[in-house]
């Protein structure tokens, strides 16, 4: 009995791009989100960056350690294009619009605007941390790795990882301790 599979639209044929995406997509998305306002715009830019990688051969000849820099460089050019063309938008993402209907004080429009502002500031502050701080934060919060696992992966001591992680969190925590204008 012979099995014949019809190819569904759920795969990519290029193992290089599959691996590139697996290795760098999240880091690139985090980088892009620091520079664009909405998740939709960030998705568009990341998509365009990987489409460029699929079309162009240049990246395939670069050493692996230069791949993320190439992707970020392409993303930067996409930012420039993006801000040239974007105009003041009255459009609000759907999830924001629906949540604006809530009357609870914790989820009201004012609180939501404050949280968006804090999130943007949090992304910015994370981006300002040293690279190895950002790596450890990503391993902890995106990949769910504990300090021991991170230490083993990065070949550092467990104590060093704990020190970096606690320092990063204490620094980022200041976003929520500093007084804000207009905050209740």
């Amino acid at each position, binding site marked *: 009995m012979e*099995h014949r599979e019809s*190819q569904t639209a759920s795969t990519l044929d290029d193992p290089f791009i599959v691996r590139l995406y697996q290795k760098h997509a999240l880091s690139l998305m985090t980088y892009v989100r620091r520079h664009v306002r909405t998740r939709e715009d960030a998705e568009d830019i990341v998509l365009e960056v990987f489409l460029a990688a699929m079309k162009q051969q240049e990246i395939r000849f670069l050493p692996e350690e230069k791949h993320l820099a190439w992707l970020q460089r392409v993303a930067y050019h996409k930012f420039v294009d993006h801000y040239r063309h974007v105009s003041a938008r009255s459009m609000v993402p759907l999830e924001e619009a629906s949540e604006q209907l809530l009357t609870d004080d914790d989820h009201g429009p004012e609180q939501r605007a404050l949280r968006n502002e*804090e999130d943007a500031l*949090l992304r910015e502050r994370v981006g300002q941390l040293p690279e190895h701080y950002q790596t450890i934060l990503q*391993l902890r919060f995106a990949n769910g790795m504990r300090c021991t696992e991170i230490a083993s992966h990065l070949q550092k001591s467990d104590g060093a990882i704990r020190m970096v992680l606690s320092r990063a*969190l204490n620094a980022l*925590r200041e*976003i929520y301790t500093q007084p804000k204008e207009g905050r209740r």
Partner: protein
Amino acid sequence: MNDEIFTPERVDEQIEQNLSFSRSGQFARDPGERVVQRLHALYEEDMLATAHVWERLIRQESRWNIAAQPTEIMQALPRERSLLEPLSPANLPRRQKKYTSRVSAFSRRVSLFAAVLVLAFLVGSLIFVLQAAHPSTSVVTGKPGQTVYSLTRDPEGQPFVDLAWSPDSQRVALLTTGGLQIWDATTGANKVTAHLPADMLDAFIMGSLPATGDSSYLSARLPASGGGGANIRVLAWSPDGKWIAVSGMGPELAIVNAQTGALAHYFNLASSTGVVTENLPTTGSSTLLSAHMPASGGGGPTISGLAWSPNSQQLAVTVVADRLNGSLSLNIVNAQSGTLAHHLTISSGADVLNWAGVASWSPDGKYLAAHVIRESQVLSTVWVWDTSNYQVVFKQDGGVQAGGTFEYGDQLAWQPHTNNLVFAVGEGTGKLFTIKVELWDIAKHTMLQQYPVISLGQFAWSPNGTYLAVVTAYNPSVYHGQWITVLNATSGHPVYNYKQQTGHIAALAWSPDGKYIVSCDESTVKVWVAP
């Protein structure tokens, strides 16, 4: 006042406490809680966005493929063709046409006759050579990837575990949890069932092992539907074609006659006297391996890999002596007597548990390589010994797979006619863990090539060493869903993707004559035309 809320000693616990608070749906007001909550939410959002972009990428590529249909390309050709066509006789002056016409007719007849003679000579030579080399070989007519034979087990049947080609490429041996079968590769005919002892087969039964009774080991080792599970190499066909060595992943090792399936030798590594429970003749020496097994209550030895030496005289057997202690050894066993030729203890350092391993001899027999999984499937190491003195000549650590789920195989493979070794090396972070495939010249201790594929660790070389078939994952989010990608070994470029296997691919082998590849998941075996 000390504002350092997060302390190095407790940072993990503090994060988990704050995350559990946020999962309860409550809005965090404490700054420490909020920073953890918001970091977690932002990374989750980014991961979700990343997954969404992946889907869009696939849809975009699908649109490109539809746009580039062959019919569209063919329609573009006539214009180009007309520019390349030679000047036709219709374009020549009349006198030239007549003369040209007579000369052309004669030339054509002569050329045609000569072409027929040359063709006949070539075909005849080809037939002669083929018959001389492989008297019973049929010419492959299918296109690459075309399935020539498929075997599907019954839903209630025993899962497929491992497979091997005969050296003459005529037969395939298939190991299931129910036993060993051997059949003609492209037809399934002349099926032979090997006679394996019952207690050896018992070791395969899901949920129990005679020595340890530990089902988690077994379930992790056998391919399960939906993916996951480490691959094993407990079936090996001797290079001289006479014997098939089989292990039940317990302490038993059987050698059967490859033609008849009759049991020729049977060794129980856990027995101090070599006597097995089934009143079978004892052929194992009491000095086999049992003398090297630690006296421990943590479970008996288990075989995780088998490999024949190129001269078919010895077997390299990787044995985990005791899963609780985790000591692993590579044992060179004289195949006919069962006596131990060499015992190599593989140690990866203090407090490191060696969990499983496979071994492989270089084509010239000069080296013996082993790929060892350790520390509860998290770490891996490749070892290579010089077989003249069994000194370690190469050792490479293979990276970390956080999360504890061993999703990739433990394979390595020597490139034919060389001392180059290919193996998978893990790297990366937790959910985005990835695997590199590297080719090393062992003699020169030089990495020759790094292949850009997400490999699940199963390899098969074409007999001439030009191509490498690799089990790869096509979805970077999970390791379910596998292809077999055939790479050009020199350039690293993929030349073919085989997508017909639906489950987790348990085994893969390229026929020694280069014509076919056989692959299996737990329920289906396919023999298909190699590219």
